[in-house]
């Protein structure tokens, strides 16, 4: 429930947001206490979820860091229809105004960005259903075994195909089955022979032998994934030896992983977009004279940069502003690219005025990687004093490595690729013809954390039910790590 005062400001903010062309599912605001906020935040914004200690762990951390004054959550918004937004009750009126304006930005982004298009907007209900289902399973099979299995699944949670919604990588799963039968039916094991010679050229033992060979071949082929599969969770769901309840748990974990994926995929854009709109709406409309200083203080807090890390709010906001300015002044296209006159470039203003349209287009079609790749320019990089850094073993500290544009951009893109997660896919489910699972890590110079990988493999083996392997590289040399369920061994791969 909002107070009358808040309702007034919310209506004002909403009116302005709509005027600017923001398009969102209705936002329902709720003022919550610090305790509730920490609770909601630890549950990812969903009041009803399945029972798991990890939410308790998050709650523990959040409530402690709030109690010690280390962090405070101003607001939280979830991608649903209608859109739910929680406001911290301890926020000042100014903060509530800012936060409400900010939330309209997020709400617009959720609704319009293409990477969110596949998400379930009734997720609130679905999360609650997941809770009910897991509770039922726990009642039946016991809390411990179910929780242990959830832990196993969560340990594989990042092995999903983040582009699954956009790309159809696989053939229709039903189709190949028919194909295989069709092929074997047509394929005759008999050698070509005239009718009367048939029983001499193709004696009955020979035919049987051949049929057995074909059958064996077919079985071997059938078990292989016909294409490599980045949706490891999905692959396990279809092919691992699981009980029905385990399948259900796994599918729940996978559904939720896919639901949250686009948020990680668009963190910079989403926060940048929301910050863009809260500054716009606040400074142009909602601020009273007395609030200016306080506003500046709160706003600069959100866009402050910490040493050694990029602030997505700041980076996103500045990039959106940069794009708007460039498209307003016509600083794009071939003429602009080919101009090498600094003075002309500095004064470049063709009064194209397309800035606003452009940023709306960008928020619809891009994700963080394409956003940075397309719009981060050398000038931007220089202006914002960006650099790459690395750990220097000799001096024992992090040092600035380079301010070279290409390096900064490359580094940034690399770290965003696959969310900074290693690229891992299923290659073979009948590895060495022993029903073992083979994953492949696409090595790009960054090694896996090996002790973690070993433990993950143990969990994977529990889900797969047979030994599992992963091909990766250490110090540039390919190795194969094998886990038989308890022991983990690694050997060099030739």
């Amino acid at each position, binding site marked *: *429930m909002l107070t009358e005062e808040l*309702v007034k400001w919310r209506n004002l903010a909403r009116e302005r947001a709509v005027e600017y062309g923001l398009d969102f599912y*209705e936002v*329902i605001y*709720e003022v919550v206490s610090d305790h509730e906020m920490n609770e909601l935040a630890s*549950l990812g914004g969903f*009041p*009803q*979820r399945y*029972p*798991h*200690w*990890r*939410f*308790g*762990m998050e*709650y*523990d951390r959040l409530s402690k860091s709030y109690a010690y004054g280390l962090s405070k959550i101003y607001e939280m918004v979830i991608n649903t229809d209608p859109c*739910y937004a929680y406001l911290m009750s301890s926020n000042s009126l100014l903060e509530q105004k800012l936060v409400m304006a900010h939330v309209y930005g997020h709400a617009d982004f959720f609704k319009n960005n293409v990477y969110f298009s596949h998400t379930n907007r009734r997720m609130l209900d679905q999360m609650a259903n997941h*809770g009910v289902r897991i509770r039922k399973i726990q009642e039946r099979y016991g809390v411990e075994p179910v929780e242990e299995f959830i*832990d196993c699944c969560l*340990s594989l949670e*990042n092995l999903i195909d983040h582009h699954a919604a956009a790309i159809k990588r696989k053939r229709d799963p039903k189709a190949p089955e028919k194909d295989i039968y069709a092929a074997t039916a047509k394929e005759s094991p008999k050698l070509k022979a005239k009718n009367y010679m048939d029983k001499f050229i193709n004696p009955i033992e020979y035919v049987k032998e051949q049929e057995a060979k074909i059958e064996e071949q077919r079985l071997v082929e059938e078990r292989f994934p016909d294409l490599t599969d980045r949706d490891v969770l999905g692959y396990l769901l279809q092919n691992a030896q699981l009980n029905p309840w385990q399948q259900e748990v796994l599918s729940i974990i996978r559904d939720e992983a896919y639901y949250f994926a686009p948020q990680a995929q668009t*963190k*910079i854009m989403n926060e940048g977009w929301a910050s863009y709109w809260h500054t716009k709406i606040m400074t142009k409309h909602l601020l009273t004279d007395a609030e200016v200083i306080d506003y500046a203080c709160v706003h600069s807090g959100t866009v402050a*940069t*910490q*040493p050694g*890390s*990029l*602030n997505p709010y700041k*980076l996103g906001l500045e990039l959106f502003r940069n794009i708007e300015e460039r498209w307003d002044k016509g600083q794009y296209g071939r003429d602009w690219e080919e101009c090498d006159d600094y003075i002309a470039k500095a004064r470049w203003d063709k009064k194209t005025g397309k800035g606003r349209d452009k940023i709306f287009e960008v928020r619809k079609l891009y994700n963080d990687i394409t956003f940075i790749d397309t719009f981060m320019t050398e000038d931007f990089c220089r202006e*914002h*004093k960006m*650099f*790459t*850094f690395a*750990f220097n073993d000799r*001096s024992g*500290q*992090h*040092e*600035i490595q*380079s301010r070279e544009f290409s390096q900064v951009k490359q*580094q940034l893109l*690399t*770290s965003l690729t696959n969310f*900074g*997660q*290693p690229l*891992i896919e299923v290659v073979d489910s009948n590895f060495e013809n022993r029903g073992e699972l083979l994953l492949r890590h696409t090595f790009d*110079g*960054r*090694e*896996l*954390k090996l002790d*973690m990988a070993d*433990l*993950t493999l143990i969990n994977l083996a529990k889900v797969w039910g047979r030994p599992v392997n*992963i091909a990766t590289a250490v110090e540039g040399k390919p190795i194969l790590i094998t886990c038989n369920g308890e022991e983990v061994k690694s050997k060099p791969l030739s």
Partner: protein
Amino acid sequence: MSEIKGRLFTMSGIKRDHGRFKDIVRGRIRKNLKNFISQGEMIARQGKDGKVSIPMPQIRLPKFIFGDNKKGGVAQGEGNEGDPVKGMQEQPGQGEAGQGEGQHELEVEVSLEELAEMLGEELELPKIEPKGAKEVTTKNYKYSGINKFGPQSLRHYKRTYKEALKRQISSGVYNPEKPVIIPIKSDFRFRGWAESPRPQTNAVIIYIMDVSGSMGDVQKDIVRNEAFWIDTWLRSQYKDIERRYIIHDATAKEVDQDTFYRTRESGGTLISSAYKLLVDMVTKDYAASEWNIYPFHFSDGDNWSTEDTKVCLDMLREQVLPVVNQFSYGQVESRYGSGQFFKDLIEAFNQNEKLVASRIPDREGIYDSIKQFLGAGR
């Protein structure tokens, strides 16, 4: 748009998840207690008010993630190439672009009592039945109340002032222009005390350490760790506990706690010198009828001569063991020590349950050793 009345949602109750997490963390502490003891983290983090904060990494489920050879990250700010990134922690790891949150270390605050409880539970240590305790009770005085009468030395200034002020205001004597407060006899208030009987048990731990040349830093670290846990446990068993420290090489002397852990002497070892000092200390300060006495001797087991060892054994048999609750000998294995003293002790006191000897081969051995020392519940 329509307003919805009341709460929009009901919470599923994070309490359960939180409780479960805490259980796991507690369980983790128990399961990994071995590692904690040998990691030496506890003593470094003894806080101000007797709290020990165990640095507890969050339970992180294993995932396929990148290892340490990651290439750093991107950030923004001033500085030239090669300059250190200000404010970064001096350790490899983190700093990936676009990630808002860094790694978090979760600190679980555990009080010494809780710690002792966990230790007791993990090692299945029995509660100690103190000797000579039941009869001797002392009274505990605590200033907890306010009386109208009492000695001037216990006068409660503030309360007296308040009473006088109240009286003056209600009787109209008080003048805000000239706020002079004069208490009369009935205004005076004094601190009062309450008595509470409590069983008096006296306990003393006497740590003896061999600081001869063969005891290196590794060995001392092991002793420090073990002593910390012994302290923790015995302090949970006795209300007040005294601690005395003796170091010895060829000669013995009493030192304070700090010196005890820091000193490193060189030269030979005469264990008898330490035992002599121990016996002196006990006869002088700790009457066996009233005190629970716990000597702990840590050494690498090298004694100067078999003759000295004989003197030691005699002293233990005749003067030490009859008066102490238990004599504990911990032999920290070192490359230079022969470890002969352990064998001699076992040979001589195999039947005497008041003497517990234990070998501590390495950090991992601390766990078993503590169990041996404290497992008898004496």
